[in-house]
């Protein structure tokens, strides 16, 4: 076992963890707003570091320690996970601030204030998501995944809505089932290869190929549960609808999307020639996920549940991009993570603004005509829906664009069958603007009703920050796409 000096990347990653514990200790003594600023600032440290690394070097990796039989533990930043990291870090930073007015209201409802605990869990959760994405190794990946699951479970169990005991339990069981299957796949991988590294690719990778389908099956199933792909999606609407809204805004786009990132990072890159045999199955699964959950959004009365089903559909998009097995599609899938992080956090936060300002209002049938009295919330929700529908000037335009370009590049080679698929594609991609703008109408438009109140600056400023970030990355897509494409292209050579 060799321990190198603590590398910069890792120490940067550890900052929010350390700060989170600090927040727990001093939480009772500081004003909530200050806690939020500390939390956001600590999450900003890795963001600044990652951005600087990308601007200067375009890739970074540092080894913490190498253990014989386990492989090496590294912190990895490159074109592939850069958009994912940016999405997670920017959203978690902004939502930390947003949490203050929202949780103030929630604590009033609960009758007790836990600012220290909340920000400890929040920061811990956010930092562990960053850790998952920067890890290179099954064990490290699982470790951070587990940390994120436990912290998010506690956030739901402590501060959630409805039957939060049951919901958090459902969440715990499902996500652990996913994590366990994933770990099992990684375990077989590691036992055979003598290393748990998935990056860099182990030189003796071919010795695993006799067992490859078992490993692929376990890992994919585990990650599908994480992503809430059709068939194993049932837990998501419970958890994401009943979580306190700032946590929904992180769970829904960021945490589940990591599943999609991991599919690309692990089985896709390692077992490309095997995965491609599953192409049609993955495409069908993706389209079924998109259309099924898209249809179910129309059935929802609860705004947050509607958004939760929409998240499932967005994961379907991500899977579709992956299933195109084409560099453009992969670029689209990773951009989709980022765009969904931006869009869905805007949407959940907007629904949170409605909830806080209007006595816990979540029932869409009681909404309508809010636009006049809640112009800011309306604008932010509109930007969110534009983002998930792929309309400019939001970055969602590029994610949908590249996914479709990738799928088109695939379909052009599949003759007439491709055009049968195109019909389902049209339905699948058409359904998002349909439910999005129907929801806009149901919630905000129609005859004006009195008595709604728009949220204050503390709540809206973080959303404006996220929205502007989405627009900046739309205007300068090269910030994300150029390094991403270079990386994907070097892997796939196509």
């Amino acid at each position: 076992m060799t321990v190198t000096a603590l590398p910069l990347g890792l120490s940067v990653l550890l900052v929010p963890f350390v700060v989170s514990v600090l927040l727990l200790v001093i939480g009772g003594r500081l004003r909530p707003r200050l806690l939020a600023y500390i939390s956001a600032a600590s999450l900003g440290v890795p963001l600044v570091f990652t951005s600087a690394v990308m601007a200067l070097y375009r890739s970074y990796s540092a080894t913490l320690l190498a253990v014989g039989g386990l492989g090496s533990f590294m912190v990895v930043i490159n074109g592939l996970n850069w958009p994912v990291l940016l999405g997670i870090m920017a959203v978690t930073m902004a939502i930390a601030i947003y949490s203050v007015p929202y949780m103030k209201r929630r604590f009033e409802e609960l009758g007790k204030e836990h600012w220290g605990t909340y920000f400890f869990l929040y920061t811990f959760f956010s930092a562990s998501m960053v850790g998952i994405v920067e890890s290179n190794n099954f064990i490290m990946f699982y470790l951070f995944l587990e940390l994120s699951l436990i912290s998010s479970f506690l956030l739901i169990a402590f501060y959630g809505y409805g039957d939060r005991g049951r919901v958090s339990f459902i969440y715990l069981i499902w996500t652990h089932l996913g994590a366990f299957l994933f770990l099992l796949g990684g375990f077989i991988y590691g036992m055979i290869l003598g290393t748990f590294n998935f990056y860099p690719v182990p030189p003796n990778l071919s010795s695993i190929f006799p067992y490859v389908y078992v490993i692929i099956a376990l890992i994919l199933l585990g990650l599908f549960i994480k992503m809430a792909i059709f068939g194993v999606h049932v837990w998501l609407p419970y958890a994401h609808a009943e979580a306190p809204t700032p946590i929904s805004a992180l769970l829904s786009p960021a945490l589940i999307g990591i599943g999609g990132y991991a599919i690309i990072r692990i089985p896709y890159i390692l077992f490309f020639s095997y995965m491609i045999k599953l192409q049609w199955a993955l495409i069908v699964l993706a389209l079924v996920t998109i259309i099924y959950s898209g249809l179910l959004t129309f059935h929802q009365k609860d705004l947050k549940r509607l958004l939760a089903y929409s998240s499932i559909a967005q994961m379907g998009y991500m899977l579709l991009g992956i299933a195109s097995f084409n560099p453009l599609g992969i670029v689209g899938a990773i951009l989709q993570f980022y765009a969904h992080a931006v869009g869905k956090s805007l949407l959940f936060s907007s629904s949170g603004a409605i909830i806080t300002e209007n006595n816990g209002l979540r029932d869409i049938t009681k909404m309508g005509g809010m636009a006049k009295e809640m112009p800011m919330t309306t604008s932010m929700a509109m930007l969110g829906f534009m983002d998930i529908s792929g309309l400019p000037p939001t970055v969602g335009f590029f994610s949908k664009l590249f996914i479709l370009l990738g799928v088109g590049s695939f379909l052009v080679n599949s003759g007439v069958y491709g055009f049968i698929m195109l019909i389902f594609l049209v339905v699948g991609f058409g359904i998002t603007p349909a439910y999005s703008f129907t929801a806009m109408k149901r919630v905000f438009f129609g005859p004006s009703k009195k008595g709604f109140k728009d949220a204050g600056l503390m709540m809206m400023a973080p959303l404006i920050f996220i929205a502007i970030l989405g627009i900046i990355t739309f205007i300068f897509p090269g910030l994300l796409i150029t390094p991403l494409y270079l990386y994907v292209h070097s892997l796939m050579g196509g």
Partner: protein
Amino acid sequence: MNYLPYLIWSSPFVASAFVLALHNRKAAGGISIGSIAIATLISAYELAGLSGHPVVLNISWFSLGALQVNLGMLMDGLSTIMALVVAVISLLISIYSYRYMEDDDGINRYWFFFTFFVGSMLLLVLSNNLLLLLIGWEGTTLSSYALIGHWYTDEPERWVGDADRHTLGVPAWSTPSEAAIRAIVFTSLADVAFITAIGMLYSVSGTFSISVLASSMPHVLTVMQSRGILIPFLIAFTLGAFAKSAQFPFHEWLVTAMTGPSSISALIHAATMVNAGVYLLLRFTPMFISGSLADGLSAQIEPFFIYMLIIGALTAFMMASQATVAKELKLILAYSTASQIGYMFMAIGASFFILPTVALFAAFSHMISQAIFKAALFLVAGVLIHQFGSRYIGDIRGIWKYMKYSSIAFFLAALSLSGIPPFSGFWDKDLILDLTSSAGLWAAYAVGMVVAFLTAFYIFRVIVMTFQAGPRGEVKEAKRSMMWPYLLLGVAALLFGILWPYALGNISGRIYIAMTFDSIIKWVPAQVVSQIPFNLVMSVPSVAVSLAGIFLAYFLYRGGKQPSISKGKAGGMFGAIYAFLYDRWFINAVYYRVFVNGLLEVSTLLGVFVEAKFFDGIYHNYIPNAFARVSGRFRRLQSGDFDRFIGLMFLGLLALIIIFLIFLR
């Protein structure tokens, strides 16, 4: 390098950013009008400076590996003339809007999306890059959504359709917020096919650049043909254009799109949005034709053009027929737009069969004519609806008496729409009809003639009904700043027509056409233009049917009378025909019953049975219960019996040892 042309599309975008940032009611209109004026001046300047060759400008944007994606601009006759038309008409509409919208609550939102709309349209017209074009394309989708639904509080006076009428059980009216959804959903659906086809195009050609595609199109078509997907590819690629331009089966969104302010209707119907689809086809059809000829694929590509002819003719006829019975002023104009665009699609379809340059030119020219007279008609309609407080033509009376200038503008525009010489609408409609007959496309020709008759009839029905005397006290002429834009447009419809034959001779070097075999995008030399046939004998019938339509309208509606069929009171067959036309061929009702309601039904079924009963039932009830039962059995093991525990412990150890042995083997 010359960066000036970038200002054409970026200045409206910058203006929209300013409108948003300043959030100042007073400044918003001025900033917007100014930015569109800049766009107009620069496009005029660029048009004047164009030489015989297309100009391609590039600013690097981002890279996809080796491929550099540029903020590319393509300035040739087609795009530059188009940009000028878009900018000029938008400018006039924006000047009109300044007064028209000045008291509106959402004035900042209005100007924000107005300039965004104009900027998107100019971007899509001028871009030399399909990705950039798509941004403009989707930008128009977004802005049309926002502007159609501008009055999102859905007051009944903003609705379109009769508020108590049901067709096959489906409400026959649309609120602004609903019309907005219709627009965005119809266009987005088709855009999915469009974008996917761009992906196909890219994977075969390796480029998004339009000027590069022009030369690689033969290769692309050959590859598509070899994979047996030539026609499906072409249909997918152009599907977005069909939806944008409101052709069947996507026409329904345009019909209800007038829930927005009238100035926005003018913008959508004349300057932006619907013209985008025609523009895309004008841009790519020459490539398809020359590409197919170069590789001997003429026979294989022919069905695509027949399809375009059929859709164009069907839409032209369908919408004109519905316009003959409609009661709402703006609804009639909306039908008219889709119908006129049907003519353009017919011309583009015919371009494969005869004189491609001339046919495409005819479509382009008709688009410009349509833009001019339709903008005028909608702007006048906005004033009329406001003055008379009703959107129904039955309530509008005596406009000739009280509103001379508006009447003149409306009348001039109507003559152009009817195809009466020497208005511009005459020249290009006649040319389209002439081409279809010369090509032996007799069915298309016949439909075109019928539509010409119907067009003259429905628009003069409006004129006869609204011009006749009727005492209405409070009606007065529009404010001058609102009036002169449409008066100018009305006069332009006449002037453009008078100049039309001369223009072709004299400034032909500036007129686009895109069809030669050695280079795709090329200026039309004077001799090609002089080949544009003008056949006096052929134009007699088309003028005759238009005049017949006018006379029929006069005969039926003069002196304030209305035939019983027009009131919807006729019985029997006439009543049935009336209902069929008035209810938009039942297409809307069928869409709602089959697709919208079907979708909601399926959603409910899935939600109740699959999601709740099946998935939730299995995962969250059946499996946990099963575990509970199993755990109940296990609980019996915990009997507290020491011997038993020891026994179980040894069993467990044994199992572990066996597992270890297997692994260490």
